[in-house]
């Protein structure tokens, strides 16, 4: 690290460089009185410079970062860190593709769509998939499921978990010949055990739980995913003061973003669809209004295209807008079936 980067005044920096002190290491062995006489400055000023220099060198050598403010990161480090983070797969390859691998940790993702499009199904799928062990390319984390609507069905979670375990054993048989290594240690029931399920019956409970999450998370560091299904439901009743609602929701979203960063976990917020009245006509949009739409950095909209379900990236700082089909099967979220199969299937019904 060079002198020019030290957070000292320009005149001090100039004096240091003209006296031949160009690197931090050259300052490491010099005494304050020697420095004072070399630069023709007061001794206390020299002590100050040495203090800054030693702090700079300590940070510089121990962390490998150049940061002067504690905890700050530069973009290069963040990029490296992001590349090392594993995504949570959605179990639908097409969907993972447009999402850049799946649901990212450290981010808040909002997913919305009409009733019956599969929001809850996707939520359950993610709560299961976050637990895929590291040796299978997963995160091996736990999930928090905050259910505000009562649509979480434990038998459906078990069904998806069973399919996930089956897929893992299939995968390991396919990849490895070693019989011992084929053993998938995780059981469907373990998967259910690692989903922390909260049923919320009012918005006061919802706000309280969001506030409590930080404490819960610090006791359960292995939680890698928080799902709120849905963020909306309790906020669409009884709120006459829309400005208050906006502030409360903004607070919730800030807290969740902080949690996501602090514990490097993924937060998925499911949202409903509503109609918006503009210029004399009704249009479809995600609920909670315009100011809420600013508070989520990533937004995916699920919609019907004919008889096929599609996901569309509506807003993201890093992904290009794209859409991909997916389907909800008895085994969970999967790639959309080829059309031919689809039509065969339907003619049987």
């Amino acid at each position, binding site marked *: 690290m060079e002198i020019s980067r030290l957070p000292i005044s320009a005149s001090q920096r100039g004096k240091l460089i003209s006296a031949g002190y160009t690197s931090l290491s050259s300052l490491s062995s010099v005494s304050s009185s020697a420095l004072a006489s070399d630069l023709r400055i007061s001794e206390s000023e020299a002590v100050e410079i040495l203090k800054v220099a030693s702090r700079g060198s300590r940070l510089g050598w121990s962390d490998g970062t150049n940061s002067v403010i504690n905890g700050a990161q530069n973009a290069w480090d963040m990029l490296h860190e992001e590349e090392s983070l594993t995504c949570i797969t959605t179990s639908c390859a097409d969907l993972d593709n447009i999402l850049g691998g799946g649901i990212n940790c450290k981010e808040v993702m909002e997913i919305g769509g009409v009733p*019956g499009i599969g929001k809850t199904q996707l939520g359950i799928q993610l709560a299961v998939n976050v637990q895929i062990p590291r040796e299978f390319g997963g995160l091996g984390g736990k999930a928090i499921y905050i259910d505000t*609507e009562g649509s979480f069905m*434990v038998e*459906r979670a078990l069904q998806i978990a069973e399919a996930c375990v089956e897929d893992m054993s299939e995968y390991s048989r396919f990849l490895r010949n070693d019989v011992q290594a084929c053993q998938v240690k995780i059981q469907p029931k373990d998967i259910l*055990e690692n989903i922390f399920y909260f049923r919320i*019956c009012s918005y006061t409970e919802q706000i309280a739980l969001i506030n409590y999450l930080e404490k819960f998370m610090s006791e359960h560091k292995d939680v890698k995913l928080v799902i709120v299904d849905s963020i909306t439901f*309790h906020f669409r009743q*009884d709120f006459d003061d829309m400005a208050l609602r906006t502030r409360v929701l903004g607070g919730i979203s800030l807290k969740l973003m902080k949690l996501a960063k602090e514990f490097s976990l993924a937060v998925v917020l499911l949202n409903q669809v509503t109609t918006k009245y503009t210029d004399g006509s009704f*249009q479809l949009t995600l609920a909670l209004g315009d100011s809420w739409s600013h508070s989520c950095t990533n937004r995916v909209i699920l919609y019907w295209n004919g*008889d096929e379900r599609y996901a569309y990236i509506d807003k993201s700082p890093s992904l290009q807008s794209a859409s991909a089909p997916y389907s909800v099967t008895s085994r969970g979220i999967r790639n959309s079936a080829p059309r031919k199969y689809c039509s065969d299937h339907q003619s049987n019904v």
Partner: protein
Amino acid sequence: MRPQHLLHQPLTTQKCTLGCPILDRCLGGAIPCNSITELVAESGSGKTQLCLQLSLSSQLPASHGGLSASSLYLHTEFPFPFRRLHQLSTNFRSSHPCNDHDPCDNIFVQGVHTVDQLLDIMPRIESFIKNSKSRLPIRLIVIDSIAALFRSDFENTPGDLKKRSSLFFKISGKLKAMAMGFGLAVVVTNQVVDLVAPDEGINGLKVGNLGCLYSSGRRVCPALGLAWANCVNSRLFLAKDDEFVHQDNQLVNGDGGDFVSRRTRRWIHVVFAPHLPKLSCEFEITRKGIFGVER
């Protein structure tokens, strides 16, 4: 606040039988507890029939798929079909002879005229369930129908619609909280509206697995719109279709004329449900009740 352990509760949500094994099997055990199930249909499709039958079958013990519970029946359309309930209960008693009480004693009926009245009685319902001295605890609430309350009192203006949807969420929030707190199965019925201009704007919006709902050859969609669709957990659609069967009745009557008989076929479709895929089942309504038809 503590999370619930999913393994500490039964691995399937408790369901309440509809009183017909075919329908139960088709619907994965029938009506789930802890959530709201909506029955959507045009008039004369069997919504009320199904609700009446459900309030009887919920009294069955768990071994028979019931909740061994009494039920609360809120009706908004008058009069309440007491005679039909009596008819069904007579049949119910004869097919389940171990029951020595009159099953009608376990069905509490309350008429509701307006939305405000419904909101007013909600807290009373809660304390009624909590302090019920009846032989069986209340585990089933039926609202037949929710649409009748809303379809007259509100105008089609943005302001009224906003007020209306806020009421939807309020009612649904309270019902869900009670469903969760007492392990209730909540069933609401809803009417349909005809789709006049299909596929235009949000009118043709596809909600759930079925792109379009057809009943009696008309394209319909559930009443109360998108906001209400967000308020229910499962939506079942009862469809009917009249079939004209030409029969050559020469042998029977000997008058040589063709006799046209009308037969109504009925289906129950899953529009959306967190635990069920897209499926449908045919059923028929007889004097003895509603029964699924095996194909």
